[in-house]
């Protein structure tokens, strides 16, 4: 099962990383919509909430189709808002699908992330059911097909003494209570979605709930333009005495309809429940084997100064500060292993190197970099890459979930375009002492290759890296380290061309720096004194 899951993940990751590269080239990593799929869902839910409030004012449960037709006939606001509501909901399903697929491909669906995975699935389910009720509200041909199909599924369950489907055959007028219940669900479910959304992000310290402004207005603007230029029309009203021959089907919400109508209701339940069970069980079948599972961070209380930086930096709120009990005053950090994803960001935020997952603490990194220098012995003009395992300079981009991303001891480091790579599990895990060590060891330059900030598998690695390198965030890179010999570059898997360009540029910069230093070393006075001495001698 794990082998199959790994293959599936590998394939998914290959697809996603290609799409990422393409989108990065088009929109830059900052505005790549694939990096913001989760935030786009929140944005679209807000759009649905606002447009839905307007539609609610004009909707009548006593005349569902006629009232929606009246809204659609409002040539300006009503038609556009209804269309925006519809297209926004479609885009929301699309964004949720991408978000889930992305996290599955990155192996972020198990362990401490299980709650987010499960609540995300519940969100998707509620979104689909909410959409179902929305379509039934219109009570056109598509609504009739959806209602009849839903009733057919329910009728196979031994809980109703009479078939629900009889409600839709025209024996009696459909009671207003049905449309009231439907409307109630259509309003209540989205409200519930915001609660589930809160649970979904509850284990994240600083969730990015909205996309950057450009992407935000761009997305809303495009959907609005679509609504104006291609507004949603009205299908004929549902009629129990005419065969519902044709309908305009919304593939995002009713993609299953053509398939399930061919299946017996019992088979639909078996198929649907099986699919649901597989998705819900993903945290079990996507987790790595016990021996490959990364170990959570641990704290060496003797070294902890109680500065709280790891507590502030942890993207998953896995660290709390507790009162010391060892006779010393103050607090010390405690890691909750159930919340720790072993990203190692805390290791880089600790100046005394007292915290981090086994093998990833600052001290472990220093040991590794010492060995790296011994093995590689880089020259004074050589650039060393410090690369995130999941980025362009990673050896094994699918190492996530297994191992800690670092090379095994004694392993000959890999190269990129002739430069040696010192690999780390996340750029945010790189302790600044490692950079200092490399520079002081005589390396020409250090190019840290991080993932794009919104694509960090540990959420905030690149952000904290930059802060520590250039903005004096605690555990900062010391002033004595020449910043000219250091550069940070963001490149995702496969962005080799971009990385090669950045590397060439940095090499050129190091070459110029070396030339300038060589020039500065010339003792001008001595050079000038020589002729004088010669003159005096003569």
């Amino acid at each position, binding site marked *: 099962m794990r082998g199959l899951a790994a293959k599936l993940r590998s394939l998914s990751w290959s697809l996603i990383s290609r799409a990422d590269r393409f989108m990065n080239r088009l929109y830059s990593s900052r505005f790549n919509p694939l990096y913001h799929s989760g935030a786009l869902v929140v944005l679209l839910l807000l759009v649905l909430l606002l447009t839905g409030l307007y539609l609610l004012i004009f909707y009548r449960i006593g005349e569902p189709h006629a009232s929606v037709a009246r809204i659609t006939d409002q040539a300006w606001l009503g038609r556009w808002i209804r269309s925006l509501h519809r297209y926004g909901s479609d*885009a929301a399903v*699309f964004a949720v699908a991408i978000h889930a697929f992305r996290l599955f491909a990155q192996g972020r669906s198990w362990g401490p992330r299980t709650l987010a995975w499960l609540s995300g699935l519940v969100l998707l389910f509620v979104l689909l059911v909410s959409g179902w009720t929305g379509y039934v509200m219109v009570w056109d041909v598509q609504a009739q097909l959806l209602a009849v199909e839903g009733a057919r599924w329910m009728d196979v369950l031994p809980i109703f*003494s009479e078939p629900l489907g009889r409600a839709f055959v025209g024996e009696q007028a459909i009671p207003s209570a049905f449309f009231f219940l439907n409307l109630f669900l259509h309003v209540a479910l989205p409200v519930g979605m915001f609660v589930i959304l809160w649970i979904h992000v509850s284990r994240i310290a600083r969730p990015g709930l909205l996309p950057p402004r450009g992407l935000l207005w761009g997305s809303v603007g495009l959907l609005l333009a679509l609504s104006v230029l291609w507004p949603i029309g009205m299908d004929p009203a549902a009629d129990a005495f005419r065969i519902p*021959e*044709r309908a305009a089907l919304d593939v995002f919400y009713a993609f299953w309809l053509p398939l399930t109508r061919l299946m017996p209701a019992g088979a639909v339940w078996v198929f649907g429940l099986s699919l649901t069970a597989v998705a819900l069980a993903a945290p079990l079948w996507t987790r790595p084997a016990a021996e490959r599972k990364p170990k959570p961070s641990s704290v060496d209380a003797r070294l902890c100064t109680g500065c709280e930086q790891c507590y502030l930096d942890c993207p998953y709120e896995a660290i709390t500060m507790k009162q010391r009990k060892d006779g010393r005053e103050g607090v010390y950090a405690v890691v909750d292993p159930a919340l720790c994803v072993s990203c190692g960001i805390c290791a880089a935020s600790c100046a005394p190197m007292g915290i981090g997952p086994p093998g990833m603490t600052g001290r472990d990194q220093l040991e590794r970099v010492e060995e790296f220098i011994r093995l590689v012995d880089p020259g004074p003009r050589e650039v060393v890459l410090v690369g995130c395992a999941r980025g362009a300079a990673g050896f094994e981009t699918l190492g996530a979930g297994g191992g800690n991303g670092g090379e095994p001891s004694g392993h000959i480091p890999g190269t990129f375009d002739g430069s040696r790579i010192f690999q780390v599990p996340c750029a945010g895990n790189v302790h600044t002492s490692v950079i200092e060590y490399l520079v002081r060891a005589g390396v020409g330059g250090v190019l840290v290759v991080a993932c794009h900030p919104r694509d960090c598998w540990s959420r905030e690695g690149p952000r904290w890296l930059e802060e520590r390198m250039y903005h004096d965030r605690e555990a900062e890179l010391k002033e004595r380290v020449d910043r000219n010999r250091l550069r940070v570059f963001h490149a995702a898997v496969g962005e080799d061309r971009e990385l090669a360009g950045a590397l060439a540029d940095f090499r050129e910069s190091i070459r110029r720096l070396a030339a300038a230093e060589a020039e500065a070393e010339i003792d001008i006075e001595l050079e000038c004194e020589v002729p004088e001495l010669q003159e005096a001698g003569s």
Partner: protein
Amino acid sequence: MSRLRVGLGVLVALLMTLAIGALSQVPYRAESADQAWIRLSWRVSAPRIEECRTLTAEELAELPIHMRREEVCEGTGIPYRLHIALNGEGVEETLIRGAGTRGDRPIYVFRELRVEPGAHRLEISLTPEIARDMATGDAEMETLELAEDLDLAAGDVALITRTAGGSLTVRRAEP
């Protein structure tokens, strides 16, 4: 960013937006309107038949105090036989029992027949199926029957249901 890249970015965004618009309203042919449907949908409150007997003093003594009822009744709803014939040919012959674990919930009929458009002779009967040894007492037994000539156009749905008076009737789309 080169102009080409910006143009390509705008183009891809437009195509994705258009794809959302297109997938939001895909023409779907759910059913063939070359046919016509006859739907049967109604319910009958099937009378309940019970056999009651008085418990002996010994039987009562064996029961806990709170369960000592002198008369116990066991019963069920009467099953009905549904017969449907279309153009003189039997289409269905089914024994229908009331829903529920005791079979005493109302009986319902919910069927759909798909037929070619044109004239059809429809005969339906729903009659109580009383076994010889069944003690029906004074229960009222309803028998429902319908024999009707239907002229159905393509795409029409005819509904066979009950009137307020309880007899079977045909309902069609209002002209």
